[in-house]
Every structure is written in structure tokens, then in C-alpha cells.
């Protein structure tokens, strides 16, 4: 097989224990906590009040601005609270709490339509109204990526089925079980962008998914590109480099090189939004890690508490010491299991104390491994040194803002220095300075 890749990166242990487990449906929780900020951009505005009865798929919050999306009820029931609740970000943020009635009935006004009868703009509006965001974890509103300015000509649609984060298998299972929806979604996305060429990028550790999509995609002229198993192969700019050989210039978006990237989960959600008229109210998430008894791939409603997901997977195996939402490399550590799953929850990882490395930070030994591993070709150790000294201008000169926070530098560092954490901190400092000037 001809495997493509990008320079840099590294090979963390795969640990995809749940790859063979079919997607299971997670039952309805006691209450669904649906936060108003589940996407990059302005939080949505709640438009329901306590006591309202809502149907599954009904809008409960309106988008605020262009880079924002509406939020929908993920089951039918009664709104019991509109208040700040603990969010995966670690703070109490505005949320709508729904007590499900157990009927789980869809809003009847939601009607599907044939994409062949709709124009590109109509499709785009439907995608926005369905609240679709990037399902890989970054949750960037999908309609924004599908609206390139006039002067940017899009040539290739890349569908991200790489799933390079260790442990996660949600996209893998989705490709095996829901390939029809994914391919249909790709057709719709191609129509919105008005282009022909679509390439699905998949890492070579998922040969069954590569085989299946190659076979089924052939009739629709959708290409599949097998990629070398390497982290962060699924990062947007690295994926574009691997598949097209084009490098996205510093400080610009993929549309600069004529590419739009969407996740396989996003493509499947687009298909549902158009064909069935169903908004984004559920997603597939992998629940795994050494602290979980039976790793599984679950179809969860947005707002399901993490504790129910754990319960559904045979409960905890020992005391949890680290709870991560997302993958182990870029996921976000959580304060407790009483936090709701959101649109970007691609996985839930639980580690016990004995699974975690003992970190004894030492001085930088100038080995340069972080520089070799950095997929953006930055000098993480230099930027981190500036971050420690709060030297904002110097860090900016070393292109700290181009860092994608993939964590390769911290992973590879033999002195276990918090490199990516430092760079992330100074990025905040650079942005704050830019805002004040």
C-alpha cells in the first residue's frame, strides 16, 4: 500500500482496545445537561424557560453571530433548569437542563428533503440550522468552513477518518457501521462546495475501514487515501500536507490552499440533517482506558453525564486518578464524572494512579527531540523558555501562534518539561497583547 504522511510526529502506543466493539446505544439519563457553549465561537442564547416541554430535536438555544450554531434538545421532556452548570471547560457555564419523559419522540415539524432539489446555499443553511460542528473534537461550526470567500477557490474536500489519537475508535466504528451515511454526507458537502474531488484519509491501522470505503466510494468517485500510522496524522494541516503535499501558510486557514477538511462524523451528521431533517443531538464516543471495565463505543445523546457512560461500560476498574474527555494527547482533563458529554466529546478515558507516569521534571538537556517531533517545525523548547520568562514578543517571533497544541513535544521530552502547556500559556499572552494594541 502506498502510505502518505507528513514530516515530524511520533508513534505513541495505539491502545485501540475497543476497535472490535460495535456501537451501542447509551440509555436515557435522569437528566440531560446541555451547555450553551459546545462549539468554537459565541455561545448560543437559550430560548426556553423552566417548565417548557420540549421535543427531541427542538431548538433550545439560538446561534449568536456567524461563528455560532443553534443547540437542540437531545430528548423529549421538561426543562427543569436554565442555569450555570459544570462544563467540561472546568467552569460553571450557562446550560439548559432537561428531565427526559422517556418517550424520546422527535419534533414532528422536522422534515427531511432530497438534496438534489436544494441549492448549495439552502443546503448550507440547513447544515447551520442543524447545529453541525466539526465532530473531530475541535467543534468548529461546519457552515463557516463551507463558506469560503469569493476569491478562494476550493478544489479538494478532505474527509478526516484518521483518528490518530490513541485509544479512540469512535470514527473507526462509524466508518464500518455507517459508511452509507458518511458517503451520502460527502456527496452533499461536495454539492455545497461545488467541487468534484473528495478524498477520505484513513490511517493504515484501520484496513477494514479502508477496504470498505474504497469499495463503496468507487461508484461515487470518492477516493480513499491510506496514511502512515503516526500522531498527529489527523491534525487538519498535517492531513492536508500528507494528502496533497500543500502546506497551509502560517496564520491562514486550509481554504488558502484550496482545501476544506471535515471529519467523517461531520459528514454523517450532514446526511442526517438533510435527508431526515434531524439536527445534531447525538454522537459516537469511545469510553475506554485502564480504569474502565469494558471499553465500548457508545452512541450518546448530547448532555449525557459521563457517569452514565462509565456505568454503561461495566463501571470503574479501581479509583480514577485522571479523567480525560477526548483523546489522551489533546483531550481535556475533567474535575469529576458529573459533567455532561458535549458535541466535541469523541471519547472518555479513565486512568488509575498506577497507569500514570511519575513525572519528575528536570532541566532541558538540549536533546532536540521536541524539535524533531514538532509537526509544525517549531522550536518548542525555545518558546517554552520564553514562556517561563513571560517574554511575549520573543515567543511570537518564534511563531508560537502556529502551535497546534498536539502535545508531541511534551510526550517526547525526556526531562518531562511541560512544553505544550507553556506554549499554550504564552499563546494566551500573545493574543491578550494583540487585543490591547
Amino acid at each position, binding site marked *: 500500500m502506498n502510505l502518505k504522511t507528513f514530516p515530524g510526529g511520533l508513534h505513541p502506543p495505539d491502545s485501540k482496545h475497543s476497535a472490535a466493539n460495535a456501537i451501542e446505544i447509551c440509555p436515557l439519563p435522569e437528566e440531560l445537561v446541555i451547555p450553551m457553549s459546545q462549539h468554537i465561537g459565541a455561545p448560543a442564547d437559550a430560548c426556553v424557560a423552566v417548565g417548557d416541554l420540549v421535543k427531541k430535536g427542538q431548538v433550545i438555544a439560538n446561534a449568536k453571530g456567524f461563528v455560532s450554531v443553534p443547540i437542540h434538545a437531545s430528548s423529549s421532556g421538561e426543562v427543569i433548569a436554565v442555569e450555570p452548570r459544570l462544563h467540561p*471547560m*472546568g*467552569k460553571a457555564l450557562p446550560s439548559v437542563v432537561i428531565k427526559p419523559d422517556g418517550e424520546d419522540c422527535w419534533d414532528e415539524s422536522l422534515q427531511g428533503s432530497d438534496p438534489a432539489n436544494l441549492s448549495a446555499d439552502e443546503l448550507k443553511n440547513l447544515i447551520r440550522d442543524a447545529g453541525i460542528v466539526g465532530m473531530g473534537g475541535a467543534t468548529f461550526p461546519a457552515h463557516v468552513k463551507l463558506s469560503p470567500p469569493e476569491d478562494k477557490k476550493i478544489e479538494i474536500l478532505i474527509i478526516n477518518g484518521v483518528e490518530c489519537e490513541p485509544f479512540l475508535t469512535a470514527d473507526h466504528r462509524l466508518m464500518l457501521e455507517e459508511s452509507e451515511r458518511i458517503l451520502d454526507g460527502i456527496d452533499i458537502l461536495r454539492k455545497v462546495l461545488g467541487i468534484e474531488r473528495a478524498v477520505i484519509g484513513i490511517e493504515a491501522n484501520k484496513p477494514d475501514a479502508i477496504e470498505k470505503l474504497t469499495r463503496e466510494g468507487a461508484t461515487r468517485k470518492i477516493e480513499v487515501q491510506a496514511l502512515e500510522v503516526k500522531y498527529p496524522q489527523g491534525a487538519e494541516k498535517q492531513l492536508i500536507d500528507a494528502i496533497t503535499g500543500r502546506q497551509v501558510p502560517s496564520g491562514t486557514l486550509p481554504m488558502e490552499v484550496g482545501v476544506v477538511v471535515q471529519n467523517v462524523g461531520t459528514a454523517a451528521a450532514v446526511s442526517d440533517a438533510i435527508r431526515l431533517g434531524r439536527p445534531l443531538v447525538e454522537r459516537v464516543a469511545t469510553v475506554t482506558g485502564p480504569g474502565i471495565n469494558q471499553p465500548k463505543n457508545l452512541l450518546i445523546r448530547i448532555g449525557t453525564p459521563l457517569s452514565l457512560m462509565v456505568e454503561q461500560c461495566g463501571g470503574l476498574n479501581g479509583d480514577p486518578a485522571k479523567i480525560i474527555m477526548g483523546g489522551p494527547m489533546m483531550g481535556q*482533563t475533567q*474535575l469529576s464524572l458529573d459533567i455532561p458529554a458535549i458535541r466535541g466529546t469523541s471519547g472518555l478515558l479513565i486512568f488509575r494512579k498506577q497507569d500514570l507516569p511519575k*513525572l519528575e521534571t528536570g532541566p532541558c538537556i538540549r536533546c532536540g527531540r521536541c524539535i524533531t517531533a514538532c509537526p509544525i517545525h517549531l522550536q518548542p523548547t525555545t518558546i*517554552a523558555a520564553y*514562556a*517561563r520568562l513571560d517574554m511575549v514578543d520573543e515567543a511570537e517571533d518564534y511563531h508560537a501562534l502556529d502551535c497546534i497544541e498536539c502535545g508531541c513535544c511534551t510526550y517526547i521530552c525526556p526531562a518531562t518539561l*511541560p512544553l505544550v*502547556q*507553556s506554549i499554550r*500559556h504564552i499563546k*494566551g499572552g500573545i493574543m491578550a497583547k494583540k487585543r490591547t494594541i
Partner: protein
Amino acid sequence: MLAAILSLGGIGLVAAAALGVAAKKFAVEVDPREAAILEVLPGANCGACGLPGCGGYAKAVVNGTFAPNLCTPGGAETVEKIAHILGVEAITADPKVAVVLCQGDNGKATEKYRYLGLEDCNAAQKIADGPKACPGGCLGLGTCERVCPFGAIEITPDGLAVISREKCTGCEKCISVCPRKVIRMTPLDATTHVLCNSHDKGPLVRKYCQVGCIGCTICKKNAPDAYKIENFLAEVIYEHHSEAAEVLEKCPTKCIRDFSTGYPEGSSFPPPTVPVKPAQVD
């Protein structure tokens, strides 16, 4: 050999003469007062006056663009010297000292999570509002220690910032970098402080800190002039601080400390000597 010595020596003499003439002819007029003021400034370049360094401040004072009493590190003595050089009357403010209003080190206050990132309070504060369960407590990662130009701040082994009352000059650099606003400027002669920065209600404070103020108002009942309670947090009224020390023993959580008896637990600073300015007696 002789020719070499003579010619090199000759060049040296000619060049020295040229330089001497140039130094006289092109000399830049410097106000002698500027040099004199620079001489009496502490030379820490801390920025407390609002200018980048002592040189800039000396110039600004002579120009009249900056007041002569802005050097807090130098204290009253420096202000008087500057005033004397300028031939004006010295107007000095009461000396101030920074105090960390927290005693909840890692042994006494509970953590919300274990923080493993960059050793910097501002970086830690961005992650779920900091690792301490208390929303106002000192994070003890040393951001203030690093910015202090006078080495007046230390972090105890259990992770609590403590400020030396002798080394602190009141430049306020630490105040601006602390993400939790737990450092406060207080009069130097006031040695009794309520070392807590949490406005939460008592039962909640008890849950996460052994030495937090629970807003029980016992101090205010016993010394009504010296304490006020705002949002479940007691505070010393510094105008009447001399009465504040009387209720020390009555505080149930021992969150009131008289610094003249020593610094919080774990600090390596020796107990402070008598304040520079004696407590006022009405």
C-alpha cells in the same frame, strides 16, 4: 624597537589630546541634580514610579514631569533626599507593605485537582479557575516571587507565598501579577491582618480550608472598631489597627495573624522586628 615605542607612544599622545579636546568641546550638558538624584535612588529599576528605570525617573523629576515622592522602594528617606536636592519640601506618604491574605498552604487547604503544568499562577488559574478549591487562596506557584525586584517574597515548602515586612518596599509589582488578587497593600505599622481572601459562606470555607475566615463575626463583636465583615469575610479597619490584635485568640479558625509574633508556618523569614514607624497612640 625604539622607533616602535616612540611612534606608538606618539600616536597615543596625539589621540589622547584629541579625545580630551573633544570631551570638552562636545560635552553634553547634564543637570547635576539629575546625577545627584540617581545617586540617592535605590537602583533597583523596579518601575514602581511608573517609569522603566531609576535613570528615567531621575530625569523626569528634574524636568518636573514626575513628582519627587513616587519612589516607594526608597521610602521617606529617599524622598527627603530628592526634595533636598531639588530644594522643595518633602511630602511623604505613610510607608506601605504588601501582605498575602492567605494561610491555606497545601497542608491546610484542599485541592480541586492536581496541577502539573507550567509553574506559574496565571497559567494554573486558566485551568478550571486554578487547582485550589478556594476561589481566592494563594496558588503558591511563585509568579509574585519571580517578579519581586527585592527578593522579598518566598514560597514555603507547602506552597504559600509569604512577604517579608523588612524587604518589601511597597513597589506593588506583585499586586498586578497575582491572578487571585490575594496580595494587598497595607500600612507598615499595621501588623494584624485577617489572612483570608474567600468570600464564600462559612460552611463552604470549612469544607476546603482549615484556616479560612468563616465570617462568624466574633472579631467584630469583640473589637467593633477594628473589624468589618463584608460578604462573609472579616477585614481589619486599618485606621484602628492597634485594637485588632486584642481578639487574636478568640478567632475560631485562627485566620487572624499578628505579624509581630512571626510569619505564617513554613516561612524561613525571621520574625519581623518592630515596625519602622511606631504604632500611633491616640
